[in-house]
Each structure stands twice: as structure tokens, then as C-alpha cells.
């Protein structure tokens, strides 16, 4: 049997201390926690930085490092620093060194890096070693070469290599959410379908149970399946909460692709083991002939400036869409005349909160709002021109009338200056897999001894 303790769905989201101690007392074989996701958008991979506050990550990681020392078992984090880029791994390593010095514990750290060189990845594309997944964007080698960061998602093989170093702590760059949990059970010959399925159920911590924000769960893997147990007071897993978790953020609730094959849970049977635990058997791991790892990449698409204005005058609230369309037309003409920017060189979008900001033209409801928020979103090739367009837009958002005859209206701004500068913005470029001869070909493993 292999017992995996999962403190929460992500480092930085907090975990229940009492439940964690309960988990340590139960004698886990490994502590595994996810450090990231693409779910907060392309900026983090674009910049190679963490979404969560350093102070939160440090505080939670220090608690886990102390728990690890107490249990005498490995602690692994996957997708360190939200995006798992090499710079985010270095950030996490830096935090780990600081804590190790404060705790005064000698440590062996394995660092698994997932970053890919854009030029080498573009060459892999030209060589036909990269193939698209469903709804992949239409790209070319130049789009890949232009990426600010590309990461490959490590699977169980690479985490296994890191565990085989005998490290106390493994800091991994981008991995699949499941690999950090599945690796040790697979190394010790637990049921392969059970290992991947249990890892998928556990990767969001207690989200597979009631009291989902409590975080901490324990998963026991063995030769025929797995048993999942949430550890916080008042948290219960039932066959329904566990099986329903396969729906969460999964396009297909029965099939999950991983490096080296896929998990099929069509035949899985979920049974209540007791009040809080669920036993699962019958899931199947289907090995693939070809070893592939998924790629994520981001490229810069310009610089963004945002302005917010508020409409409260009933005439303008009622006619907000026509007012906004007229501003776009007039301001675009001025941008072209005065800045020489054609429509394809920049974007200028007015989103009307209270009217159509959520769904745009797909909105089906109309109502009678008493105020409208106007969010102007500008993207231009550089920060100076994004700012310049913001300033050109300002007189319209301040005073643009619906008719020529009326007295000049004035609208509300929340700030001076009204423009907010976001800096460089990014987009996701890759929804593809890279074909590898050897699982370690796209990854680098380093071992660091801290005395």
C-alpha cells in the first residue's frame, strides 16, 4: 500500500493545519501538492511568475517542510510558481532555501525543470515532432519561436526519476496535475488505473468531498484500486462527491490523457468505505505506443491600457450601446488620422457592465439597469501607444454627447489619471503534444544538497 497525503489543491490556497497533522500521524509515504495551473490565464506563463503572494507560498511551504521533516518522507510540488516555467522553479527554490536556513534542517532537493527552448521547439515543429490536440490554434514555427516561455508537462516517469534520487524535497516545473500523486504508487506497482484515477480525484485536494476548502485529503493506493479520505473535521467523501469530481474542469469525464497513455474510468465502481472514505476500483490505464508530453506556450501580443467610466444619467444608461458604438467609430477615425494606426494594429473595446459585458452579442437578456460601467480595453504594439490611445479616448468617455443639440454631458471617472497600464499582455499559443523517444529528453533533473 502507498499512502499519499495531499494538503490542498494548490500551494497558496491554504490548508487546514489540524487535518494536516492528522495526516502526518497516519504515516504517509509522500506529501504531494500542486503549485499551479493555466486556469488564471496566460500572464503567469507569459512572464514566468507566480500568481500567489510570496508570503503566502512561503508560510504554507514552511508548514509543509516542517511536516515533511516530522514524517521523514519526500515532499513534492508540481507546477511550481503557478506556471512551472524555469524562472518560477527558481523562485520556489529560493523560497525553499530561505526556509531551510530558518528551520536549520539539512536537505536534499531534486529540481525538475520543464522549460523548453523556443528555437529548439520551433525546430521540433519543423521536424514533425509536435502534433495538435483538439481545438489547437493554427500556428507555425515562427509563432513557437516567438514564445516568451514554453513548458512541457512532465508525467509520472519524470517525477519517478526525481524520487529515485532519494531527495527529501522535489521542486518540479510544469507537470500534469496528477503525475506528482500517481508517481510513487506506480513505482511501487500499485494498480495503474487506480493510481491515475486516485491522483485525478485527489489533485484538487478536498474538492472531491464536502467542506471542499478544508484542503487536506489522504489517498491509499493498492493492488486493486484506491481509497480516498478527507481529513478535516466535517469533511466527508461519498461515491457521489468523488465520482462527480471527474466532471470538474475535464472536457471528457471518463478519459484522461497523460504522458504514455490514458486513463479510462468508464468501468470504475465507487463505494462508500465508511462515513468519510470512498473506495474505487475498476478504472483502467491504457498504455500508448508513443510517448508524448503536452506543451504550453505563451507569446506577447501587445501592451494593454484600461479605463473605467460610469454612466448614471438615465438617458445615457438607456442608450449606452449606441453611445459606445459612436465613440468607437469616432475615436478609431481619430487614432488613424493622428497616430497612423490602422484597425488591425490595435484593439479598442468598450465593455458595458450591466448591459453585455459578460457575453457580448451572445447575451439574451435585456433589463433596466440604473447604472452602466464602461470598461475601455486598449491593446497596442507598445506601452507608449496604448497610453496614447487611452488619452485620445479620454475626452469621449468624459463628454461624448448622444446628440449635437444637448448641453455637453460629463461622466464619472474613479481615478486620476483614469488610465491603468497593464504592461505586456500574452496569449496561449500551444495546445499540442511533443513526441519523445525517452521521457527525460525534454526535462532536466538537478540535485542540490543543503547542509
Amino acid at each position, binding site marked *: 500500500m502507498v499512502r499519499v497525503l495531499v494538503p490542498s489543491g494548490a500551494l497558496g490556497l491554504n490548508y487546514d493545519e489540524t487535518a494536516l497533522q492528522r495526516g502526518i500521524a497516519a504515516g504517509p509515504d509522500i506529501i504531494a501538492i500542486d503549485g499551479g495551473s*493555466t486556469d488564471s*490565464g496566460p500572464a503567469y506563463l507569459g512572464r514566468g511568475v507566480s500568481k500567489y503572494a510570496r508570503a503566502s507560498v512561503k508560510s504554507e511551504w514552511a508548514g509543509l517542510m516542517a511536516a515533511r521533516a516530522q514524517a521523514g518522507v519526500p515532499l513534492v510540488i508540481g507546477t511550481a510558481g503557478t506556471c512551472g516555467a524555469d524562472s518560477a522553479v527558481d523562485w520556489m527554490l529560493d523560497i525553499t532555501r530561505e526556509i531551510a536556513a530558518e528551520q536549520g534542517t539539512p536537505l536534499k532537493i531534486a529540481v525538475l525543470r520543464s522549460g523548453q527552448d523556443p528555437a529548439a521547439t520551433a525546430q521540433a515543429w519543423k521536424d514533425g515532432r509536435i502534433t495538435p490536440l483538439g481545438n489547437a490554434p493554427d500556428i507555425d514555427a515562427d509563432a513557437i519561436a516567438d514564445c516568451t516561455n514554453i513548458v512541457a508537462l512532465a508525467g509520472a516517469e519524470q517525477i519517478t526519476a526525481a524520487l529515485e534520487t532519494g531527495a527529501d524535497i522535489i521542486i518540479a516545473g510544469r507537470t500534469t496535475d496528477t503525475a506528482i500523486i500517481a508517481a510513487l504508487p506506480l513505482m511501487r506497482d500499485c494498480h495503474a488505473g487506480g493510481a491515475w484515477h486516485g491522483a485525478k480525484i485527489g489533485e484538487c485536494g478536498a474538492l472531491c468531498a464536502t467542506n471542499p476548502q478544508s484542503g487536506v485529503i489522504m489517498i491509499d493506493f493498492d493492488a486493486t484500486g484506491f481509497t480516498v479520505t478527507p481529513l478535516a473535521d466535517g469533511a466527508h467523501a461519498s461515491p457521489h462527491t468523488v465520482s462527480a469530481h471527474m466532471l470538474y474542469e475535464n472536457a471528457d469525464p471518463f478519459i484522461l490523457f497523460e504522458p504514455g497513455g490514458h486513463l479510462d474510468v468508464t468501468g470504475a465502481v465507487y463505494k462508500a468505505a465508511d462515513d468519510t472514505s470512498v473506495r474505487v476500483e475498476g478504472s483502467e490505464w491504457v498504455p500508448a505506443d508513443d510517448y508524448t508530453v503536452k506543451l504550453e506556450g505563451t507569446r506577447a501580443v501587445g501592451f494593454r491600457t484600461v479605463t473605467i467610466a460610469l454612466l448614471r444619467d438615465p438617458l445615457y444608461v438607456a442608450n449606452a450601446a449606441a453611445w459606445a458604438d459612436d465613440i468607437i467609430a469616432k475615436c478609431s477615425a481619430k487614432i488613424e488620422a493622428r497616430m497612423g494606426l490602422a484597425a488591425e494594429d490595435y484593439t479598442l473595446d468598450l465593455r458595458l457592465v450591466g448591459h453585455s459585458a459578460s*457575453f457580448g452579442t451572445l447575451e439574451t437578456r435585456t433589463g433596466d439597469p440604473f447604472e452602466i460601467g464602461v470598461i475601455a480595453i486598449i491593446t497596442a504594439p507598445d506601452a507608449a501607444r496604448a497610453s496614447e490611445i487611452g488619452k485620445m479616448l479620454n475626452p469621449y468617455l468624459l463628454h461624448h454627447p448622444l446628440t449635437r443639440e444637448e448641453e455637453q454631458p460629463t461622466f464619472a471617472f474613479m481615478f486620476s489619471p483614469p488610465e491603468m497600464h497593464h504592461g505586456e499582455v500574452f496569449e496561449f499559443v500551444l495546445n499540442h503534444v511533443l513526441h519523445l523517444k525517452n521521457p527525460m529528453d525534454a526535462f532536466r533533473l538537478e540535485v542540490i544538497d543543503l547542509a
Partner: protein
Amino acid sequence: MPELRSLVTKVRSKNAGPFWLTIDIFCGSQAAYERVRDGLATSRVAEVFGTRRQTIKRFDIPDLQVVKFSLPRPAVQGSLHDRDMHGASWAALLGETVI
């Protein structure tokens, strides 16, 4: 003719990676499940999201009394024209669909 949301326990939408959106309809009873399964055509869902029926994956899951749809995101997550980084609001649009 009721709105979908008045018949079921919950309609939830989320990203399934940056390129896909997934919507789970938790029906909460066998009767509601059958009503949604039989009353909500995939082509209607395609209309609501402004896409083609062929792009939508549909899962009718009787054990969970869930009907699930997955489709290419109306705009890729975080792209310049995306309005909803986590895909959170789309559930409301489907929930307000009359069936």
C-alpha cells in the same frame, strides 16, 4: 416553458484547459435528469454559445443525474477578446435557456 436553471440543482461552467469550456448540469433527481436529457438538444446548446453542433461533446451521465457539454471556448482563455478568464459565467447563459 421554464428556464433550465429552475428545473435543476446547479449549472456550473469552468475552463477545461485554455481552449475548452465545460458545463455541468446537476439535475438533482431522476425526473429532472430525464427532462433535461430529453428536452435540451445539443443543437440548442450550440445556438446559445454561437457555435456549430458538431463541435460540442455531450455526456448524459445517469449515475450522477448529470448532463455535461464540452465545447471549444467562445474565445481562447485570456485572448484579447475573452471576457471570462475562468469560464465562470457561461453557466448562467445556459441556465437561462428555456426548455
